[in-house]
């Protein structure tokens, strides 16, 4: 890329601000491992501090928007990588990440303890860290007041008694929205007598509401949240009822919301080492750490998803109210990768245009 000397001069002040303060001479200055991730990443301070102490390292986290934007930024900065590690690529975007050739394989020893069903990249360029389920939630009080039993399948959502009841997120702008679209494609495959297109036409006729993102759907449109919206059904996560209990600070003994069985899609999140890292050894240590019991047990209450490591214990609120659904839909990453853009475009034509 062209660089001009006048630019240098002009920006000298900016860079001066950016430069780290000079440190007193230390035996070995801590090295830095940079983790690029989505905005929802969270971890306990004490857990990260443990890693930093153990490896004399500093962890720098770069939040880069939602999962899709984060991956795209990593792809665009391929020639001059922003970070050593990327976390948060999920199975709906795995194909794009692998095709863009931005990752280095790493056969982490910790993988041995992780069930094979989570390992979607045979070359281990992307390693599973956690999983969760996008799922329809219902508002218990709302249904009770109307004398309704919760729906029990996707198909039930098109019945007249649920007219005007469901809120979904737009798959073109939202990760749970995309996951729910994929659930419906898995449930009503292309080529079957009743395919996903027909299902969405029926949903549209049943007055489904489309929000651009989870926050608006859950808080402004869904009646079961503190935002007290108008509709009793929302596409959210299997762990949302447990989170409602946890964030009530002891006020709630049971969740105000429940999960609608037969509507779940499994999302698995991955970590990978970015090509061109200058800290390969430390990046490996970080990946090992994310797969270790210490980090895995920290995941549930920080990000409200499940650890992939079976021996990681779940917190009590998860055991009581946040068990993974017995059944869920899934699609192979190859199928998702072939269909994703076309499905989103078709969905837009069917549901919103």
């Amino acid at each position, binding site marked *: 890329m062209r660089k001009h000397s006048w630019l240098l001069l002009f920006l000298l002040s900016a860079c001066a601000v950016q430069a780290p303060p000079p440190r007193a001479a230390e035996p070995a200055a801590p090295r830095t491992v940079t983790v690029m991730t989505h905005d929802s990443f969270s971890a306990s*301070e004490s857990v990260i501090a443990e890693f930093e102490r153990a490896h004399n390292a500093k962890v720098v986290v770069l*939040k880069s928007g939602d999962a899709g934007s984060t991956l795209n930024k990593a792809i665009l900065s391929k020639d001059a990588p922003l970070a050593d590690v990327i976390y948060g690529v999920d199975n709906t975007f795995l194909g794009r990440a692998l095709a863009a050739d931005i990752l280095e394989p790493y056969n982490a020893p910790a993988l041995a303890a992780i069930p094979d069903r989570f390992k979607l990249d045979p070359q281990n360029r992307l390693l599973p860290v956690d999983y969760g389920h996008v799922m329809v939630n219902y508002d218990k009080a709302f249904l009770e007041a109307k004398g309704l039993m919760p729906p029990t399948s996707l198909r039930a959502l098109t019945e007249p008694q649920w007219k005007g009841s469901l809120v979904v997120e737009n798959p073109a702008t939202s990760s749970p929205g995309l996951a729910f679209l994929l659930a419906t494609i898995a449930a009503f495959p292309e080529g079957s007598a009743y395919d996903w297109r027909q299902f969405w036409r029926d949903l549209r006729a049943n007055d489904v509401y489309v929000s651009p993102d989870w926050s608006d759907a859950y808080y402004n449109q869904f009646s079961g949240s503190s935002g007290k919206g108008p509709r009793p059904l929302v596409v959210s996560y299997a762990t949302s009822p447990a989170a409602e209990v946890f964030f009530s600070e002891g006020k709630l003994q049971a969740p105000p919301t429940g999960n609608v069985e037969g509507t779940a899609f499994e999302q698995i999140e991955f970590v990978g080492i970015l090509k061109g890292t200058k800290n390969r050894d430390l990046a490996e240590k970080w990946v090992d750490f994310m797969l270790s019991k210490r980090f895995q047990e920290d995941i549930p209450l920080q990000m409200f998803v499940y650890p992939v490591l079976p021996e990681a214990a779940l917190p009590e609120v998860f055991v009581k109210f946040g068990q993974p659904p017995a059944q869920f839909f899934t699609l192979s990453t190859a199928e998702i990768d072939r269909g994703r853009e076309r499905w989103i475009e078709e969905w837009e034509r069917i549901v919103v245009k």
Partner: protein
Amino acid sequence: MRMLKQIAPAAPALLFLAVFFAWPLVEIGRVSFTPGAFGRGVTPLTVLRDPAYLSVALFTLWQAALSTALTLLAGLPIALAFARYRFAGQGFWRAAAVVPFVMPTVVVAAAFSALLGPRGLVNQMLQALFSLEQPPIQLFGSLPFVLLAHVFYNVAVVIRLVGGFLANLSPSLEEAAAGLGAGRWQIVRSVLLPLSLPAIGAASALVFLFSFTSFGVVLILGGARFATLEVEIYQQATQMLRLDVAASLAVIQMAITLLVGWASAWLEAQSGASLEVRPGSDVQRKPTTLAARALLFGSLTFIALVLLAPMITLIVRSFDWESGSPWRYYTALGQNIRGALFFVPPQVAIGNSLFFALVTMALTLLLGLPLAYALAYLKRRRWLEAILILPLGTSAATLGLGFLVTFDQPPLDLRRSFVLLPVAHTLVALPFFVRAALPAFRALDQRLREAARGLGAGPLQVMRYIDLPLLAPPIAAAAVFAFAVSLGEFGASLLIARPEYPTMPVVIYRFLSQPGALNYGQAMAMSSLLMLVTASSAALIEWIRAR
């Protein structure tokens, strides 16, 4: 040569725009249109052949024009009332009008939902009153809601800019017209409107461009049925990775912005009269007539109902009315119950927000004042003005990716530096400031300055004793917006964020990304603090100006 000398004060601003605006755009354009990686051959010349994109472009223009008309309709009477009449609490009302400008869209949606939603206050009242089965007002997902929100967000621009301009206008012409027997409407139509045309033009251009590039409002309040160019660019760039389509649409967006900028400059030139400018305190009087009182009452009612009522619902929701400790959500803001790494104490978020806003305002004044000075006395400047307004009509998504591919080599690897944040804010604030301040600069009576020079005053003395006192109100009004642009995080959404410097809107979004009463309550509490910080900052800037 003379032209060069005239334009010299503008050099720092032009350099700033060349480095942080033009260069990243050229780079991302190069990446986007290179066949292969991200492009499949769509160009700005071919993109509108797709009827879907064409209709998005037409809708974008149509809703922006409607929004601008409605905002003017609501804002002009209020601007007149604020400029002409003295009344108790004026400072409060003026500061309050700016608050909506900075609020995150999802929070505004929560506010309107609490007020006008199907289970909102108004619907519940109407249903109880007329025993209706269904809520009579169904706003979510409709065009009227988008327009209402655009008025809500932008009416302050009209109130402050046109009001600030009128506040300095000597009432002698009006008095003369009244003396000649003109009625009230005639004075408004034939005296006030033509005289304030430059300010109205500037405010219209700004409101139009904010509505034209509207993103969150259209996405959240319009439901999925409506899309502006900005929404389409965001989806194509960040979700689909179709950079060719995104960049093509961004070019169309910029071309339209150029035309708007040119039209606004042209409109301003149609009324190039130097006006007799006086300090606002000489102009304002008590509202004694019935018409004056009615105007004032109507203005304050509008602000109370349309701007303040939704905001108040947020404050109501920021308290826990059921438990014994109503301040619970506020105290929780300071507690890190999960020991989370990215926990931000509220004072730090407020501090970060204020710091970035101050830097943005300082940078904007530093670059913008000389730029406005140079532009004010330049002949043949319409296209230059149009180009200078471009950042306001440029897709934030595109520019964000431009930063990513441009500032990626040491020593210019700024991608992860917090420096880019005030830079991105200034890119929006600077054109806003210049557009807002120019009408006032041009209205200065040259004879006054020449007289001062004739009496031996140097250029700095002229600036100190003639220009500054008369220009202070409009400059303060424009500076308030530079500050507010940063507080509301315009255009910075697509930068790479280092969680070390979270601002108030970032913290609000973070709370709203997880379920639970505590998260929602804290989001409302932080939103209430953001309102408080915005209103008091606006009031403080005015107070400093008055000193």
